[in-house]
């Protein structure tokens, strides 16, 4: 089985036909979504969740830190964007920077508290902090608008010198979000193969050895938490633009569980592209299966159970098996621990 820490074969292409196909599908989505019986907004929603999922997998898959309260940072980003627009100025970049900084600050504080913990204690603490944010969003009515949240958040125009792009048009906004998605993919791809990312993966594999070769393990975990929270904050800011509102439900345990489910079903534990598959599968299930039955989430939940029981490597694992099946077994895939 391939794993996240595998090294691509030397001389392999950094851009594959599958990536090219995905790029073409993404770039032409506004042309075929409606003829395919879908709607423009789903493209925006999928792209935002892809950003969120890719950032989340830096923590969940690459660092092995099982955060179950990550919706908090999506929510903090959404609220920060909304508050900036409603109380500071109507400004695109200022709002998005505020979303990332606010989520980053929240992630830095929580990360400092949880990075010294492992396993179930880490997971429980992330849930607890997630609930603190969710509860605060409901109770701090004067700031967050309570259960109703912040409404009528404007979508500022994108200003490119003399050209102004109206992002209230969903097609324009889709391409705007797509640019951020491309940047997130590029950043994450570079990061997981750079010294920082490889050190994170080493810590995930063997924390004891990592400490004894000189790594400040908690600092790496904290940085992963911070970066992941900032990316969730960016996704949250874009989500607030898309919804033109920010509300507590985004921070709920249910929403935090959703991202875990997407990443696991997609195969985020074994592949960089796992979260992408998971998000696509979820939205396809919601909009196609959801058109056929109201109980679509039950079926998706059963799929999740089946995946965890029979193929914990997720969809990406299934695809890797098919690929290896075609090419024959990998040269070094079988551990051989015989004693001399």
């Amino acid at each position: 089985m391939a794993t996240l820490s595998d090294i691509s074969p030397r001389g392999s292409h950094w851009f594959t036909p599958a990536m090219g196909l995905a790029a073409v599908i993404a770039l032409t989505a506004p042309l075929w979504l409606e003829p395919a019986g879908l709607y423009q907004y789903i493209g925006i929603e999928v792209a935002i969740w892809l950003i969120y999922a890719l950032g989340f997998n830096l923590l969940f898959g690459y660092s092995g830190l099982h955060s179950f309260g990550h919706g908090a940072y999506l929510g903090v980003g959404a609220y920060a964007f909304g508050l900036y627009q409603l109380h500071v100025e109507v400004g695109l970049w200022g709002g998005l920077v505020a979303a990332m900084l606010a989520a980053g600050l929240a992630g830095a504080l929580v990360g400092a508290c949880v990075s010294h913990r492992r396993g179930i204690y880490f997971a429980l603490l992330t849930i607890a902090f997630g609930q603190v944010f969710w509860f605060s969003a409901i109770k701090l009515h004067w700031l967050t608008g309570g259960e109703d949240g912040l409404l009528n958040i404007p979508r500022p125009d994108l200003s490119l010198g003399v050209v102004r792009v109206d992002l209230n048009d969903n097609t324009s906004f889709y391409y705007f979000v797509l640019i951020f998605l491309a940047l997130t993919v590029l950043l994450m791809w570079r990061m997981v193969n750079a010294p920082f990312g490889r050190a994170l993966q080493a810590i995930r594999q063997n924390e004891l050895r990592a400490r004894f070769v000189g790594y400040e393990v908690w600092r790496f975990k904290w940085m992963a938490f911070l970066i992941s929270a900032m990316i969730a904050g960016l996704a949250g800011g874009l989500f607030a633009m898309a919804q033109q509102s920010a509300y507590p439900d985004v921070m709920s345990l249910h929403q935090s569980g959703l991202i875990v489910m997407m990443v696991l079903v997609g195969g985020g534990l074994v592949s960089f592209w796992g979260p992408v598959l998971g998000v696509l599968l979820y939205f396809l299930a919601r909009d196609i299966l959801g058109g056929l039955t109201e109980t679509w989430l039950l079926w998706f939940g059963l799929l999740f159970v089946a995946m965890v029981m029979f193929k914990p490597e997720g969809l990406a694992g299934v695809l890797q098996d098919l690929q290896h099946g075609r090419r024959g077994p990998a040269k070094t895939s079988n551990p051989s621990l015989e004693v001399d």
Partner: protein
Amino acid sequence: MALFEAHNLHKRFGARVVLEDISLAFEEGQVSGIMGPNGAGKTTCFNVLTGRYRPDRGSIRFKGREITGLAPQRIARLGIARSFQMMTLFDQSAVIENVMLALPAFHARRTQVLRSVFDKQDLLQQAETVLKEVGLVERAWDPSVSLSYGERRALEIGVALAQQPRILFLDEPTSGLGLEGRERLAELLQQLRSTYTIVMIEHDMAFLFRLADRISVVHWGQVIAEGDPASLMANKWVQRSALGGLQ
């Protein structure tokens, strides 16, 4: 002054005293051995010396500097490397990456986030040099989990060497190795002794007596005898132990 000194180390776990006023000194350029029966406190002693456990009292000095109670990562960065009795590798990573991760040059770039480690030719070359030293260069790009037991032992040492240490602590390096594996390891350590100060815990007394310049015998958490292999042969405890068969 010895390169590495420990004075009056004391460590207890609950009511059980594991180390009781142990003092040890390891001279630069020597191979030092620690031997003793199971449960004597040898591995706890290593764990205290390398920062895994904090001693309840006593002091540890490296190159004259007090390092008592420092975290393992700080001790590692001072030039103290160790291997483990239970093999402790990055199993899902390639052999070469296990070594790269331990290189000081990699560590200096540990917060870089944009350039792939596999584009860094200097890191690859340094890692290959270490792998040549431990005889694993042919397996460089295989996952470490695919190595044989003996190769994994060699990689354990390779990871420690990659840290470019001044002193190398090896915890039962022959554990689980057959005769051929032990022989290869003895050859490797003979090569390394000219470059590194080595301290090793070893159950295989024939192996230890062949390599060590000086040996400390630990029992009941105390050093009960010390000396060069020849003088220890005359020690009563050593004579009563399995070493009697060597004479």
